[in-house]
């Protein structure tokens, strides 16, 4: 089991969701986050004064998957999120030691799906 975490551009979320549904990945958790990579965020003005290095809005996805679904999930996110510009984001894949479905108490692979 793996936990796929992706940081993407907020406006790519709808496309990423579409690609994930196509890959038969239907379980997803989304949260708004702030961050920046190499491009060092954006400039903001406060009554005319410049402030640089502000964080950009991003969206973070968390998806728990069985081994068979790792590649399709990663590829779907890349297809949906890529614009070719700086700031498209990152995908992290982590080992996941345990997964429990709260409603039934099921564990492991069955609980993910």
């Amino acid at each position, binding site marked *: 089991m793996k936990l796929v975490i992706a940081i993407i*551009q*907020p*406006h790519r979320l*709808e496309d990423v969701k579409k690609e994930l549904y196509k890959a038969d990945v239907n379980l997803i958790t989304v949260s*708004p*986050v*702030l961050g920046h990579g190499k491009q060092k965020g*954006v*400039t*903001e*003005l406060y009554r005319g004064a410049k402030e640089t290095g502000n964080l*950009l*809005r991003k969206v973070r996805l968390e998806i728990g998957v069985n081994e068979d679904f790792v590649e399709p999930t990663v590829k779907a996110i890349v297809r949906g999120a890529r*614009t070719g*510009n700086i700031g498209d984001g990152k995908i992290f894949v982590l080992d996941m030691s345990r997964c429990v479905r709260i409603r039934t108490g099921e564990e492991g692979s069955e609980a993910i799906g």
Partner: protein
Amino acid sequence: MEAVINSGDTAWVLASTALVMLMTPGLAFFYGGMVRRKNVLGVLMQCFTVLCVLSLQWVLFGYSLSFGPGNSFIGGLSWAGLNGVGLEPYADYSATIPHQAFMIFQAMFAIITPALIIGAFAERMKFSAFLVFIVLWATFVYAPICHMVWAVGGFIRNLGALDFAGGTVVHINAGIAALVMAIVLGKRKGYENKPMPLHNLPFTVLGAALLWFGWFGFNAGSALAANGLAVSAFVVTNTAAAAAGLSWALLEWKFNGSPTMFGTVTGIVAGLVAITPAAGFVNVMGAIVIGLLVSVFCFIAVGVVKPKLGYDDSLDAFGVHGIGGAWGAIATGLFATTTINPAGADGLFYGNAGLVAKQLIAVGITVVYCFVATFIIAKVVDVVMGLRVADKDEAIGLDLTQHHEVAYTVLD
């Protein structure tokens, strides 16, 4: 007519002017709540910029072009810089208040009309292009239409068509311009003929409340006197807004399963739009019918026609103001009665079919002129400087890319 200043009339027109001024910030919040959170400052900024820029345009030359002596199509520049527009009454427009009181009351109409169009190009128009567009539009579309409908010697005014508070000048005019802008600009990225998520519905409700409040100045103030006609306009304005808000909620309940807050405030604004041309000519029963039916027409325009035709009028400026304004103008031809306003005319239901024809001609001229002139202005601005922001900027949002500000923080 003997020109003597009446203190009650002057006080009411000044108070009405302040009420109408508040409608533009009200509209800013009405629209601001409807856009995505990355664009809310863009909308607020556009509305307030209209207030700043067109307040100046109006006193410098806008008022002169709209109401000054000229031909039947447009006024001249003899009143530029308010030259000759003083504190004595100008009897042709308002015999009992200072000329400048009439001028500043009309200024607020000239400001809110272009602001209404913002609803059509929200979330994708470049700020610099917006600035140039509104000045050109106020000068070459608003001024001539206003002159034709309201000024002495105006072509539509001479036809005998009735427009009490701006159904053609304000709402049809802004509504058609909105349709043109939605077509010329094209859809927002990611728009697939279904609504984009709105980010703050309570803002929209607050905005609608301010619009309803301000509309008493808009319509009852258009009597230009503290008299019975102002009271009648006030009463029918409130009645039509209430009927339309209720009507929209009931339509949603019947066809979509539940009445919504968004639908109710949309209906209220549609009702206010529709009663605007009729406010000084219809009785309260007429107002109820106008209000109940405007929601039916706008509900169909927004919910059925727009998705089918596929243009992206982001916040339904055409669907509410264009359609609601056209219904109001035609309804004035149906329900107007000289028992309310002896200076008006009787409509179809009071035995005078001719008025409907005059109303239709007035609507037709406004639609055609506004459509063509707005289209030309939009294309010229597009060629010279580009109307739309870059795709990347549209994705990040207008707040950060056009103004380098954000409305909301995520942390703290």
